[in-house]
């Protein structure tokens, strides 16, 4: 569903560094998002609310399961939320690997808050865009002629 009943989008933050976790959470809450922070990938995966997140922000270097493994685990779940990666400065090879593995995008530490927040806002739009695209695709099928060249159904026309 990627959303909460109160309309406030939930962002999940995963970072083993307490300061990073707290400061990113504060940054999101000030802008009106709800933030839930975890000190490990394992803890975030075990949390049932993860499926409701509009976006997940994760550090790459963490003890135990690292950000790349976490990304793979999240992506394997149905209706997976977009995942933003926070990488060490200059680790472009890792960033490219993350993008190929389906990360939404990445920022390098220390990052500009405007850049991270713009990505989060964009990521939060993704579930809506996916729904719209699927709706439009469905309607396009209805409006397209079948193999016999006839339209299966013409919708949205007023009765004559």
């Amino acid at each position, binding site marked *: 569903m990627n959303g909460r009943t109160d309309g406030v989008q939930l962002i999940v933050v995963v970072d083993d560094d307490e300061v*990073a976790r707290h400061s990113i959470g504060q940054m999101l809450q000030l802008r009106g998002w709800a933030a839930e922070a975890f000190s490990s990938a394992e803890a975030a995966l075990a949390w049932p609310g993860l499926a409701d997140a509009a976006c997940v922000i994760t550090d790459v270097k963490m003890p135990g399961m690292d950000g790349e493994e976490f990304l793979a685990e999240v992506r394997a779940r149905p209706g997976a939320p977009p995942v933003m990666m926070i990488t060490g400065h200059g680790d472009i090879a890792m960033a490219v690997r993350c993008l190929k593995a389906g990360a939404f995008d990445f920022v390098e530490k220390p990052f500009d808050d405007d850049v991270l927040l713009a990505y989060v806002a964009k990521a939060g739009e993704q579930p809506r865009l996916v729904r719209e695209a699927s709706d439009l695709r469905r309607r396009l099928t209805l409006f397209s002629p079948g193999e016999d060249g006839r339209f299966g159904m013409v919708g949205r026309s007023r009765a004559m």
Partner: protein
Amino acid sequence: MAAAISHELNQPLTGIRNYARNAFYMIEKGLGGEEEVKGNLRLISEQVDRAAKIINQMRELTRRTDRTSAGVDINGVVRESVEFLLPQMRLSEVEVTLALAPDLPPVWGDRIRLAQVFLNLLTNARQAMDCAPERRLSIASRRDPLADRPVVIEVTDTGRGFSEEIARSLFQPFYTTRKGGHGLGLSISRAIVQDHGGTIEASGRPGGGASFTIRLPAELGGSGRSP
């Protein structure tokens, strides 16, 4: 070394930047009270202390030695090198054990360059254990009173190890088994040890960990050679 410094300093720098920008936003938008803004300033100050501590450790590690001094306490250099890399060792879940002989004589030498040797060896060991099921690193020093080079330090890991053929090439400049490695760490380390009149040897077997042994001469009283 540069990567280690950059990683360690980036953590507090990220915190400082975030807390400062958040405080700025609170003031600009009239969010939160004075106490919350003060709270962020206090957090910023804590992160500045954290960064300063890292810088002080580095300074201690790279302090210029007085060449007329009584020599270098190798155990001290080992301890400082380990302490500097400990956050990364924890991150990589490496268990570090120190067994340092208390009766080790001082070595005549350059503290900065000797520290560089241990930082190289410890960093290599950590990287060699990246995929190892067991990650144990032990650094032991001992005194070998009858040898020409009585100060002995052994760095042993449970990493991927190497074949005899690789062991022969390890100290060659630009030889590397690691993707992205420059192949200079061990050649520089050997040059530094040799400049101090010492030797460095590597032993290991594929999948069975590696061990590096450094043997250094003791300082020869006040008239000892300088490196």
